[in-house]
């Protein structure tokens, strides 16, 4: 009953936001709107389970978007997402979304939601943006060192074309791009924290380190799971400030943010032996960080450093799902290289370290992650080959991915590839070792 009310309330809030966003500028400047760009992307993604050859992924999505302009200062950017899936991968949970960010249509197999809805105004060197938007910070690819303002989709683990897949949130952003100093201040009044796979779906977190140290099936009949309240818009708002400056040809930035963690902390709410209740909570934490980007001939070097003084985490204890806060330090180094003969190579290394303490955290004290990507275009980029390995050097697990993309026409592209996951079932990658897949993607953009 309460879920139904919450869903209806979420829909009302979203529709109201949509109408407000569209209506206000429309009333004033309807006659001066100019379409700057407009496109729709229709995509079908199908994957077969590598072990048994069954269809494990079958997802159809339609993503229309439009950019409008009014007068000399106003911009409106809108995008929607309609998805349908009937498979073992699923569309992911939306319980970790705020009511205002939830899909307008939320079925088991079909969803329709607002991907982006932003109204911006320029004031000289300043730009103010209001609406549902992303705040992409950080300079590394997919490794989230400082890039932790936005929540991300994890329903497909990391087996997506673009990483991370950001989730837009309702909020306000002010950017200043003056002589020398660049400032980016963002506030998301939207407690959306992530999108995980639903219980029982292929990429449901299975490693004990992601389940508060618990082994076994959390979705089993004897344990009830719930999300913490995601409707506290002010209490769980995210605030962030990023300052950037050029040093010669290098770009440096410093940033600080405060908001709910995007990884769940498992809390035991009720230890009733008949049906224990576990809550996925997202306590607030602060982060300070810095980035550096330095071009050097045919290479660009990227570095990030972040410190979270009070990272909430589950600990190993005689009391199940106990938790604590520890200092967490993340560092990453990456390099883009335009190699000879048209090859592009990207290599990255990241270290994620948790301060020691008693009791020990359920996750390893130090994770070392590396990524290596190579790609090349052929026949005037009609055909592209890309291959990458993502691996945890500390756990000895990883994924090897390879794909061919064929741009059949300006509108139609076809891709085929495989993702092979390997390693220990307790590892970040190895937990999904049974989810290796062969896949194909057909995309029509018009």
């Amino acid at each position: 009953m309460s879920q139904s009310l919450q869903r209806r309330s979420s829909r009302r809030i979203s529709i109201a936001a949509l109408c407000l966003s569209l209506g206000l500028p429309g009333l004033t400047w309807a006659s001066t709107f100019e379409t700057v760009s407009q496109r729709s992307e229709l995509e079908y993604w199908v994957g077969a389970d590598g072990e048994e050859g069954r269809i494990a992924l079958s997802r159809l999505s339609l993503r229309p978007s439009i950019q409008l302009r009014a007068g000399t200062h106003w911009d409106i950017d809108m995008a929607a997402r309609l998805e349908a899936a009937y498979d073992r991968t699923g569309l992911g949970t939306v319980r970790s979304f705020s009511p205002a960010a939830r899909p307008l249509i939320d079925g088991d197999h079909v969803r329709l939601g607002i991907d982006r809805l932003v109204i911006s105004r320029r004031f000289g060197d300043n730009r103010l943006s209001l609406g549902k938007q992303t705040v992409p910070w950080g300079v590394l690819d997919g490794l989230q060192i400082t890039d932790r303002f936005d929540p991300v989709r994890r329903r497909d683990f990391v087996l997506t074309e673009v990483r991370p897949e950001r989730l837009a949130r309702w909020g306000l952003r002010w950017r200043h791009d003056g002589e020398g100093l660049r400032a980016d201040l963002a506030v998301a009044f939207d407690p959306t924290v992530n999108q995980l796979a639903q219980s029982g779906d292929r990429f449901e977190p299975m490693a004990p380190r992601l389940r508060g140290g618990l082994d076994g099936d959390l979705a089993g009949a004897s344990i009830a799971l719930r999300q913490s309240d995601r409707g506290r818009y002010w209490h769980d708002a995210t605030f962030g400030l990023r300052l950037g400056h050029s040093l010669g040809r290098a770009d440096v930035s410093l940033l600080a943010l405060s908001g709910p963690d995007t990884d769940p902390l498992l809390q035991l709410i009720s230890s009733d032996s008949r049906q224990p209740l576990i809550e996925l909570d997202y306590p607030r934490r602060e982060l300070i960080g810095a980035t550096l980007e330095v071009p050097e001939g045919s290479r660009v070097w990227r570095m990030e450093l972040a410190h979270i003084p009070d990272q909430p985490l589950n600990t190993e204890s005689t009391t199940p799902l106990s938790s604590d806060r520890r200092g967490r330090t993340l560092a990453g180094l990456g390099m883009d290289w335009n190699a000879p003969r048209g090859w592009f190579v990207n290599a990255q290394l990241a270290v994620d370290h948790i301060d020691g303490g008693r009791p020990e955290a359920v996750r390893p004290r130090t994770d070392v992650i590396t990524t290596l990507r190579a790609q090349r275009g052929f026949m005037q980029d009609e055909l592209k080959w890309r291959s990458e390995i993502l691996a945890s050097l500390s756990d000895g697990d990883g994924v090897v991915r390879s794909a061919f993309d064929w741009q059949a026409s300006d509108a139609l592209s076809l891709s085929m590839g495989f993702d092979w996951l390997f390693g220990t079932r307790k590892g970040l990658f190895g937990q999904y070792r049974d989810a290796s897949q062969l896949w194909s993607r057909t995309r029509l953009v018009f």
Partner: protein
Amino acid sequence: MLERRLNRLSRASLLLSLLFMSASQAEEPSAQPWSDNPEGVALGQLIHARPASSGRVGVMNFHLINKRGRSRERTALMAHSEIEETTRVAIYFTSPASIQNTVFLNHEHVSQDNDSWLYLPATERVRRLPASERADPFMGTDLSYGDIRDNFRFPIEHWEFRAGALVSERDRELRILEGQARNEESAREMGYGRFEALIDETTLFPVRIEYFDIHDKALKQVTVSQVGQVGEAWTALSFEVENHQTGHRTEVFFEDMRFVPDLNERVFQPTALADGLPRIP
């Protein structure tokens, strides 16, 4: 600024005429060794120093045609500016939908390496690109990144020049200019070992360039079919690039090319690329 450039151009033209006068009285220049051809060097330098508008904007249309005759099309807003020692080019793709809102930005500096950025809407980030690899194809066209940067000039740090005779073509007198990469490193970086070009000395624009690869095999032919004066400078408005080795060709033509001397700085700022198509009055 304009006056200074025109004066520089007239002085250079005079010098060139004198050089060619003396050359015509002497032996056939193309027979001269590369290291001893002042006419070629002078012409190469003139082309390199050809004035460019401080700001121009136009709609750039690409037709990409493969050897089977299948055609793909690209349209982009191109903004170009040369101020002091920096040449800046921004290309905002507007169609087809699959690459809409993709932006390429390049700052070429005289005294240091170039800076390039690419904005891909899917990643939502402006990505700094590694410099060099001028020879890499630009966005699936037959132009290389170097071609885009050079804008029908021959970088004098990479080329040795040799001027040839005047030839008549379509009622125009055109000067033969040959170029040879200064060394293996230059050849490898450009993807060209040498070129043969026909130069219109009035506009200092090549009418046709035949490029040879580093193994001296015919690589591609660039044909400039239309130039126009935009502001104080000549600009190619229509040209074609044909790759002899792949059979692929790229036709490029500009529409609505106009002189915008006070082009907004934001058009060329990397951080502004994610904001989409710039407003240009």
